[in-house]
């Protein structure tokens, strides 16, 4: 009731047009800032998420550049590995373990006979760009899952099959073919079934699970001692980073130079995020200024009423509280609407991207919600201080 009377006394004397302007400005600013936060967090999700088959994070397989001087000594020393791990561009590092035993694969079917000697490599699962539930092995497993480079299949389908008059094979067909894998070493021979479970664009080796490799190397390797890896895979946010290129060059290491083109994605995302946040923050600042001005105008145009209210026994604090209740809820509403718009946009974005094999959480990031809360806190503080300042000023100039 008291609030209703106060509302009657302290009207929007500053004018609806200014208020609408402030609301529009603030809404756009909040949308821009929150979408920048959401975009950034989407980008990080794509970069670091384990769900995406081919995320835009960049994985580089690094090895020594082979020269006449280091032929036969291409392994990377522990200190080199540690140094690489410490570099700011390295997010994580995984070693590629090469098989140290003889291996061959052979068709199980007389219809499609083949035999070839082969070598495997293994790498920790998080560096693999194939997401399949079949990627596990233990000593009781009936078959060995293998990941084959996409290039192998392409080579077979578009060159080899023509030259040998063999049928072309789709990835699905290859996955169905079971073959015999034979391992040999330390005077032992061991056979098991193998099956292709996926195709990698990232690593150009025949991959087997890490625990299989460890087991087989222990069992069949002629030299049982641990050997330093020759190749490692590093996860980096930006392979176009000059620091990375310079470091590799200095250390005599080489990598897939073509990967640098992926850094364009990052630049585009960064650009959009930066523009969006800078514009957002600029607009936010202006919107805050307009809001403050609005509060100031309202208070000064109701100077006499506020003075009289205090004179009849209202405390400046209670008037401040009333003004806060008056000015702050529209801000909360604007932020909530902003969050709602971002939520809807995120849902549709995730829906759209899933068609492009990019998996994005359809729910907005907690960072965006945190950002919204932070903006609300800033708004509350600015509102509070503006109200207090002008109430105080008004009493001083009474």
């Amino acid at each position, binding site marked *: 009731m008291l609030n209703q*009377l106060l509302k009657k006394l302290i009207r929007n004397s500053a004018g609806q047009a200014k208020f609408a302007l402030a609301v529009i400005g603030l809404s756009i600013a909040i949308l821009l800032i929150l979408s920048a936060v959401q975009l950034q967090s989407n980008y990080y999700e794509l970069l670091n998420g384990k769900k995406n088959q081919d995320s835009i994070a960049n994985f580089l397989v690094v090895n020594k550049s082979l020269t006449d001087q280091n032929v036969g000594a291409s392994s990377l020393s522990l200190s080199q590995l540690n140094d690489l791990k410490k570099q700011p561009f390295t997010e994580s590092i995984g070693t590629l373990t090469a098989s140290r035993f003889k291996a061959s694969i052979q068709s199980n079917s007389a219809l499609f006979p083949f035999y070839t000697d082969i070598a495997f490599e293994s790498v920790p699962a998080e560096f693999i760009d194939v997401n399949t539930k079949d990627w596990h092995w233990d000593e009781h497993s009936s078959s060995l899952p293998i990941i084959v480079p996409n290039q192998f299949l392409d080579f077979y389908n578009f060159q080899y099959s023509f030259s040998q008059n063999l049928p072309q094979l789709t990835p699905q067909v290859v996955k169905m073919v079971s073959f015999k894998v034979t391992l040999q070493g330390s005077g032992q021979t061991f056979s098991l079934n193998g099956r292709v479970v996926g195709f990698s664009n990232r690593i150009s080796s025949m991959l087997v699970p890490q625990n299989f490799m460890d087991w087989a190397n222990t069992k069949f390797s002629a030299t049982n001692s641990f050997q330093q890896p020759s190749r490692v895979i590093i996860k980096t946010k930006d392979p176009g980073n000059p620091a990375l290129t310079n470091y590799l060059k200095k250390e005599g290491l080489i990598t897939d130079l073509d990967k640098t083109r992926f850094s364009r994605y990052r630049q585009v995302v960064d650009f959009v995020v930066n523009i969006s946040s800078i514009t957002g923050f600029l607009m936010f600042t202006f919107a805050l200024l307009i809001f403050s001005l609005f509060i100031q105008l309202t208070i000064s145009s109701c100077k006499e009423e506020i003075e009289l209210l205090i004179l*009849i026994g209202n405390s400046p*604090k*209670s008037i401040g509280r009333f003004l806060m209740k008056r000015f702050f809820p529209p801000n909360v509403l604007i932020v909530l609407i902003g969050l709602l718009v971002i939520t809807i946009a995120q849902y549709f974005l995730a829906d759209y991207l899933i068609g492009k094999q990019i998996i994005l959480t359809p729910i907005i990031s907690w960072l965006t919600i945190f950002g919204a809360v932070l903006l609300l806190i800033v708004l509350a503080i600015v509102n509070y201080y503006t109200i207090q300042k002008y109430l105080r000023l008004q009493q001083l100039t009474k």
Partner: protein
Amino acid sequence: MKLYLEKLVPYSLKDKITLGSSDIWNQSIALNDGELIKIEAPSGTGKTTLTHLLYKVRTDYSGSIKYDNLELSKCDKDALADLRQNYISIVFQDLRLFPDLSARENIEIKRLLTPQFSTKEIIVEMTDQLGVSSILDRKVRFCSLGEQQRIAIIRALIQPFNWLILDEPFSHLDQENIIRAATLIDSACKKRNAGLIIMGLNKDNYFNYNRELIL
């Protein structure tokens, strides 16, 4: 609640005040609980100034004003709001009503500060007594000065108080209305055992004054 005035001299009247010419300015006096005090003052001697000093509308003075142990000049904004809500009530000479609120709203906005003290019905009762019930829903801007004065009196009486300060409260009322208003004020003070300070130009016998002072 006792009111102590110690060597009170407003800066604006510093030159006019000569020693011993006033019962209040530059004197040390104590006004006791429940006392009805008339302060008689010719024009220009500072009636309104005194009213404003006692209610801390102005602070440009030397000396001290104390309500019991509370030194008014040291009273912060919250304490002042509490004092004005619960201990001191006032009718200003210039009334200080909100012109764009109705008479009822003007009283109500004050009543709602201490809603537990008086009910809405009391407003109607008092306006009946002072003959202003019919204008309760009229904007104060459209009320006559006499009506406004009675609304201001009711607004002052709707709250709890230990001191009621009236600055020429009957200047726009006829004799009959003055008597009605004085009766209402008197009973309100008695009910609260509150003191009354009434400023006026001349002597009068509207109340049974305990003290009559010259400003």
